């Protein structure tokens, strides 16, 4: 297994600590004139998504993490699991409900997502930032109210519940931000 020494540390590097993959998402190099270099890192746990602060001193090294990211199509749900297929080689990967997290509420069969694998096991999936989904249920639109500042809860076909303007109806197509679960705009039905 290859490793990185402190002087190879940089933003974006993927390393592992006690068998858990992390990514350096921020790094601050600090060095008092006559003292040792310190590398103050914000590390994202690639399995849990949490961020922790770690400080390394010159001369330390960390093992590289065998993490790969690629485009994979969401095929179908199987019980509480989600099945994806890598677009390159049609290899299939199963992720649990927990691994998919909130992303699961925004993805439809056939959607291209980014899958992350660690030591060949899938660990996380990200959806495109924006998806177009159909409204499955909401209260009827109030007549004449086209104000966008009045919101109501809307349930999408994939299960996500978001806040949308009052003029939205069942069957409308909406563009939704998958990172914030926010309504962006009404859209045409995708081709």
């Amino acid at each position: 297994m290859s490793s990185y020494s402190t002087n190879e540390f940089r933003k974006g590097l993927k390393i592992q600590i006690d068998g858990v993959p992390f990514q350096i998402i921020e790094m601050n190099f600090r060095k008092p004139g006559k003292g040792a270099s310190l590398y103050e890192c914000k590390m994202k746990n690639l399995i849990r998504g949490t961020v922790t602060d770690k400080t390394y001193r010159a001369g330390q090294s960390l093992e590289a993490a065998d993490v790969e990211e690629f485009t994979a199509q969401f095929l179908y749900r199987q019980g509480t699991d989600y099945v994806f297929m890598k677009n390159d080689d049609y290899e299939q990967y199963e992720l649990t409900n927990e691994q998919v997290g909130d992303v699961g509420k925004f993805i439809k069969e056939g959607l291209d997502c980014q899958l992350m694998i660690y030591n060949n096991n899938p660990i996380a999936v990200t959806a495109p930032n924006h998806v177009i989904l159909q409204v499955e249920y909401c209260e009827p639109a109030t007549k004449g109210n086209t104000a966008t500042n009045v919101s109501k809860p809307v349930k999408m076909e994939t299960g996500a519940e978001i806040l949308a303007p009052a003029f939205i109806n069942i069957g409308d197509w909406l563009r939704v931000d998958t990172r914030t679960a926010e309504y962006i705009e009404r859209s045409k039905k995708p081709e």
Partner: protein
Amino acid sequence: MCPKLSNLEHRSKLLADLRHFFSQRNFLEVETPLLSSEVIPEQHIEPLVVHSQYLQASPELHMKRLLAAGMTSIYQVTRSFRGHEQGTLHAPEFTIVEWYRVGDDMQAGITLLDELCQSLLDTRPATRTSYSESFSRHVGICPHTSTVSTLIDRARALRIEIPANMPQHDRDEWLNLLLATQVEPNLGIKGPEILFDYPASQAALAKIAPRKDGIQVARRFELYWRGVELANGYDELTDAAELQNRLENVNEKRVADDRPALSLPKSLLQAMERGLPACSGCALGFDRLAMLALGKKSIAEVMP
């Protein structure tokens, strides 16, 4: 990416002001080799090597040869090189301003640095704070008398994120960790601040002398502004045998830290044996100075 041209114009103006400051005081501008077969070993500086020669990490070695040869007030603006240093305040190649004046002690050295700072940055006179005052204020311990276990306990109590490879028995490593994380960010906030009287174990190339209370301290000083270290100066060590001892000690620590020992700078030792006059010297990071003068957060914004 090239920084804004207006930043570079401002930098150029600062450099002209700096040269004017030294020329008004009858300093001679000198040029010394960047590439040399010798280097002053430092525990935490990795010199860059080109064709078996060192790119100088500072012009100190060669400027002291000039002092030993009889020059009395000299300054230099030059590029210096330090491997593996890269960050918002560091670059492997950077601009250093270094000066020496024969006859100056530490107080005179501090005063000259303060004048330079006021003249270039239009700031008020620097606050002068001893290293031990700054530690009692920001860490709550005495840096000269505390044992290493007191320092470690303090670092833990302050919830400092402690690197795994901290040498457990080296007081200076712990002092530097506390300095970097607890003290430095609070220095020079209201205006420039000069720290002086460093622990004797961190004398580097400064003279060691007793304080009034008898504690041995290094006649070393550093300028901070807005939490950024800008300059480091000494009442210069003139004793060749003492320098040799210290550099051998540096090499032992380098080896203990898995880094190669570096051969001793014979030309400097020989010059000091012939006689280095009492003097004070100081080195200033010019990129950082320009960065702060322009209110920027990174030296990259003021480097061409």
